């Protein structure tokens, strides 16, 4: 798609060509997502394909998500305590940690980790299958590569993402509990009860789950598209992998802002 850039008619023309190419690519990605959704039947009728992708995208991400969640929660506990104690309200530590994890950090940080850990792997795998002409071979055998290769990976990512985000938040709260209550000595009863009074299931936890589902769709869509669209060369696959991480991370951050805005408007607070 970037070949238009090689012979720009003028500097202004180059900007125009770049913009048109970007819009065209966005359109291709959207059409591709439509195709993936249309050919998703196979992912349900042959669940073994999807289960295998949930294993690669989700189960193998367990360790990094759990460890990161634990450490993010511990740091939040330390920093939160430091700030809150100047107001003499360190028992609000549970509220601070739980709300920031459940609403924002859980979905967003686990999505960023997921994009770099699983998204890049999906792109590299599909790109390499294309480079080694496995995709073309499937087409020759009248096996639809989108149904057989792409859709299971897409749904594997979509299924894994909310579970990973919930795990991240839970581990983070546990980490803050270890630091705040066990090490620093914030009152345990206040830590949990203030948290329970402030965190609402519908407004806070479900919002986090919805966010992580949207992020899952976004990351999986970018990763599969970049892989399927990669030039079938070593350089092409490596560039596509980089683009997946960069684009899906930016997409997650942008979507997060939009979703947060919508949710705050919807619940009126």
């Amino acid at each position, binding site marked *: 798609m970037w070949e238009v850039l090689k012979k720009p008619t003028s500097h202004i023309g180059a900007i125009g060509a770049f913009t048109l190419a970007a819009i065209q690519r966005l359109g291709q990605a959207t059409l591709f997502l439509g195709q993936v959704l249309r050919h998703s039947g196979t992912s349900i009728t042959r669940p073994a394909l999807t*289960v295998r992708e949930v294993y690669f995208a*989700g189960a193998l991400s367990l360790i990094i998500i759990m460890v990161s969640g634990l450490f993010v929660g511990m740091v939040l506990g330390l920093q939160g305590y430091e700030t809150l104690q100047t107001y003499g309200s360190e028992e609000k530590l549970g509220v601070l940690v*739980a709300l920031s994890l459940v609403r924002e950090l859980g979905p967003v940080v686990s999505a960023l980790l997921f994009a770099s850990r699983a998204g890049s792997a999906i792109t590299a795998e599909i790109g390499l299958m294309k480079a080694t002409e496995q995709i073309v071979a499937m087409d020759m055998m009248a096996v639809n590569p989108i149904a057989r290769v792409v859709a299971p990976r897409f749904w594997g990512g979509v299924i894994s993402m909310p579970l990973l985000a*919930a*795990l991240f938040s839970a581990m983070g709260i546990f980490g803050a509990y270890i630091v705040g209550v066990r090490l620093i000595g914030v009152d345990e009863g206040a830590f949990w009860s203030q948290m*329970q009074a402030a*965190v609402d299931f519908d*407004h806070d936890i479900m919002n986090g789950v919805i966010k992580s589902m949207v992020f899952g769709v976004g990351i999986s869509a970018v990763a599969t598209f970049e892989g399927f669209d990669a030039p079938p060369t070593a350089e092409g696959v490596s560039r596509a992998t980089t683009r997946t991480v960069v684009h899906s991370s930016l997409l997650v951050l942008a979507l997060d802002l939009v979703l947060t805005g919508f949710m705050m408007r919807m619940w009126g607070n």
Partner: protein
Amino acid sequence: MNSRVVEFWVGMFVLVGFASLLFLALKVGNLGFGEDAGSYTVIAKFNNIGSLKVRAPVRAAGVTVGRVDSVDFDAAGYQARVSMTITGTYQFPTDTSASILTSGVLGENYVGLEAGADETFLKAGDQIQITQSAVVLEQLIGRFLYDKAQSNGGK
């Protein structure tokens, strides 16, 4: 990769994921509070609610007994109309009074209920008649300064 191993780990992953969601719902969140069937809604009108928000607690003797459902402006009486859901296990007499209070100096506003002595209890949809508005700091300071000026002038 053996498909048994894959299935085991995917099962493990899904279980751990749902377990953490359950942990968030039950231990971190307050799922199940408004769910109990016996809870009832009462309304109260205030001249001024301060910064009372939806989902603020309703407390009696310091114990949380319910939540504020909605806050809106009653154009007919130029008052704030607060509707609150109270847990079904708690019954309050009809002459209970409601006031807008603040927890701590910088804390949130909440509705405090002071039980009356009536024989009959509040039912769903009833209105609490005796209400006390929020204390607005500016008005309080204004009144203090006014009193001060008057006492000085009288000297």
